[in-house]
């Protein structure tokens, strides 16, 4: 375990590039690069030494390279105050980064067929995953969606890595007009798939999970819940997740996730405490050995 534990470092920015609607930041972070496994993320402090912004911003790791001892790349769209600040960084600035964080995507043992489904910036963690899967001899099919053409993520890379790459945009400005979940059934029909990996907004993950269930394919989803620390201490990033023991727990998406088995996440109850969750109001203990009860995830 201690080999995989995250590190905190002040990482020099190597480059900040504009890529369509996104910014791609590459930092020198050897400790993070060497520990990284697909699906993990970093948590970045924003605003400098006297920042008024206390919560770290989470970004999926999009790429790691061996240069300079190890670099890490992440991509983001400017959304609020923190990403606006990040977009203004220049090369040689230092960023306070913690990573790699979270439970990575579980990888298949055998060279199976994998469908990777991503929405907007949520596509980022699927790229290192695709490379890893390819290295293991898996077939990769991409389904990437976004609001508009400039928000579709790394289309060229997706085409290069994957057997097929399907794109959807809400406004039809690129690929098929519609949502990824409109295009996904066709992809699942065309190539017999063994596992689905998905990353994006909660409603999309819910639908992808439902579709995969219909085709009886296991699905791994990476959720994006609001986070303050990323390290498991603040308890703000919880989602209701069913454990192996059948008990629902409010699981921290930063350490118990962000990757969960899709059917374990109670999507319809996100934003609530399900009445039957462990410790919900009125909940009464079942079984008498709470410690051995496996944690959710």
């Amino acid at each position, binding site marked *: 375990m201690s080999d995989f*534990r*995250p*590190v*905190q470092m002040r990482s020099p920015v190597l480059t900040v590039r504009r890529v369509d609607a996104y910014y791609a930041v590459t930092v020198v972070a050897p400790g993070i690069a060497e520990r990284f496994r697909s699906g993990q993320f970093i948590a970045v*402090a924003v605003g400098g030494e006297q920042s*008024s*912004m*206390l*919560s*770290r911003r989470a970004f999926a790791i999009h790429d790691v390279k061996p240069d300079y001892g190890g670099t890490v790349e992440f991509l983001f769209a400017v959304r609020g105050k923190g990403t606006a600040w990040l977009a203004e960084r220049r090369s040689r600035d230092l960023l*306070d980064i*913690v990573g790699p964080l979270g439970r990575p995507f579980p990888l298949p043992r055998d060279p199976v067929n994998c469908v990777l489904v991503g929405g907007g910036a949520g596509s980022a963690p699927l790229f290192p995953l695709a490379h890893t899967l390819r290295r293991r001899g898996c077939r990769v099919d991409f389904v990437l969606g976004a609001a508009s053409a400039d928000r579709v993520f790394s289309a060229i890379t997706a085409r290069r890595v994957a057997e097929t790459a399907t794109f959807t945009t809400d406004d039809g400005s690129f690929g098929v007009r519609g949502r990824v979940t409109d295009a996904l059934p066709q992809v699942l029909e065309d190539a017999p798939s063994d596992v689905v990996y998905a990353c994006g907004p909660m409603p999309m993950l819910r639908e992808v999970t439902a579709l995969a269930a219909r085709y009886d394919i296991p699905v791994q989803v990476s959720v994006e*819940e*609001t986070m*303050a*620390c990323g*390290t*498991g*201490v*603040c*308890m*703000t*990033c*919880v*989602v209701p997740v069913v454990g192996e023991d059948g008990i629902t*727990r*409010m699981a921290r998406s930063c*350490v118990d996730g962000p990757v969960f088995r899709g059917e374990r996440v109670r999507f319809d109850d*996100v*934003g*609530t*405490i399900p009445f039957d*969750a*462990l*410790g*919900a*109001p009125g*909940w009464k*203990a079942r079984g008498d050995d*709470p*410690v051995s009860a496996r944690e959710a995830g």
Partner: protein
Amino acid sequence: MSPDLRTRLANVELANPILTAAGCAGAGRELAQFFDIARIGAVVTKSVMLDPRAGLPAPRMAETPSGLLSATGLQGPGIEVFLQRDLPWLLARGGRAVVSIAGGSPAEYAELARRLSDAPGVTMIEVNLSSPNLADQGRHFTDDPAAAARVVHAVRSHTRSDIPVFAKLSPDVPDLVELAVACVQARADGLSMINTVRGMAIDTTTMRPAVAGGVGGVSGPAIRPIAVACVYEVHAALPDVPIIGMGGVRTGTDALEFLLAGASAVAVGTVIFHDPSACVRILREFEEELEERGVRRAADLVGAAHRPMGAQPAR
């Protein structure tokens, strides 16, 4: 010569005055990835209750200027899991354990105190009084000095005599000094201040309250001047009662500020979310502050801001 950082909280001596704040560091396990938790004064654990507790729905937090608004609802595994899993882990790593407890009635608090007294290795108990009083239509124990005193008295009566009991106070009370006095009269060995400050944010996109609970608690550097005022005033009224000060400590200078105001130890909360190594960094900075000033013993500084001008401690 490096300064003597030891501090005394009732009959307990800690190696240094830098602690974690309850609910901001779990029971130490996550932070141990970033530093050796045996190096800080103590780990104050997340408030534990008798039963498991799922807490409040998400969204549980919103960022505010230099602060955090949160409403987590004391999610936790209950005392059973705490005693079997969390406490032994912390003790095995050489950490000092200050266990925070919360309940809905004096009896629940008493039961928690009894269970903790039976377990080996508990350094102190911190009584989180900002918990709804089930017998009083959900008012908090801190809202009523008599109710708070009943809880403190119950805990003290059921706690092993060598384990100090600290009462943790909220700033949102009609009269903080009155509340503090009531707790001390109920035999609290010391006071912890402050818990979060009542606050709220509206999400301007959804046009609804930003945290699911509506009202939440503000923490972080934003509330530091409020916390310093509380510590100062209570120390002025009760100069012999040890205080664990907290509220927005971010640097060693901030820790020093709390000592000068009257705290004997200082807990770091929200800033841990921003910097998981905060406690050891603050400890190092605090030591440097003392060295720069030529202060030999941290304990000499406790309450120094109350002394008349020119009577600050010998360097």
